[in-house]
């Protein structure tokens, strides 16, 4: 298991744009990450003032960050600093159920293919074992 500090050793994302808290499991092909959705997340102020719903794009960003942990953890530490993985394509995404304050989001990301130019992953997000979102994402690797 990896905590927030260990995650920060692998990926460059920082507050207020870090959307995963812990890594439960990780191997070469798959990562499982957790995010506790707090009542005072900054985006809830505007989304929406009278009904707090976690934006779908932030769920997708959390999936992307879990994917980044999966991919970057396979690259030697000294080389990690030289590259970034950025969104290249949202191949598909669906948002099935709203995610609310207090929910614990479980993100499972599988690496379909990794090449020097980028990576293709499939991801799902669950709350209490119910799928709330799925996506297939393509990332491009860029040099810093």
């Amino acid at each position, binding site marked *: 298991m990896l905590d927030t500090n260990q995650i920060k050793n692998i990926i460059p994302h920082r507050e207020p744009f870090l959307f995963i808290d812990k890594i439960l499991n990780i191997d070469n092909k798959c990562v499982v990450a957790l995010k506790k959705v707090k009542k005072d997340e900054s985006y809830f102020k505007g989304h929406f003032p009278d009904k707090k719903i976690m934006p779908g794009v932030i769920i997708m960003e959390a999936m992307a960050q879990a994917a980044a942990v999966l991919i970057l953890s396979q690259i030697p530490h000294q080389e990690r600093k030289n590259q970034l993985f950025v969104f290249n394509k949202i191949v598909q995404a669906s948002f099935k159920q709203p995610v609310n304050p207090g929910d614990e989001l479980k993100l499972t990301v599988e690496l379909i293919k990794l*090449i020097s130019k980028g990576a293709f992953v499939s991801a799902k997000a669950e709350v209490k074992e119910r799928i709330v979102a799925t996506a297939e994402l393509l990332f491009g690797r860029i040099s810093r």
Partner: protein
Amino acid sequence: MIKDKELREKIRQLIAESMHIKIEKITEGVSITQELGVDSLDIIQMLAAVEKQYHIEIPEEELPNMENLEGVIKVVKRYSEKKKQATES
């Protein structure tokens, strides 16, 4: 033993579906990357689709050999044969 005609049609279908291209456009000689609007990263989706269909793993070094239909067919045949030989030995 994969029949050539079936293989060709299946691969055309996989390319069409994974790259969202009309299947009629995928013919001999047409360059997937130059003429059909597929960039060098998008093509990873096509690679993943054929790997999944034929239960093979294709190294990225083969990507330059997979820029048209004939190329994809040749690479799929080669890696399917390698896999068959590996499991038989």
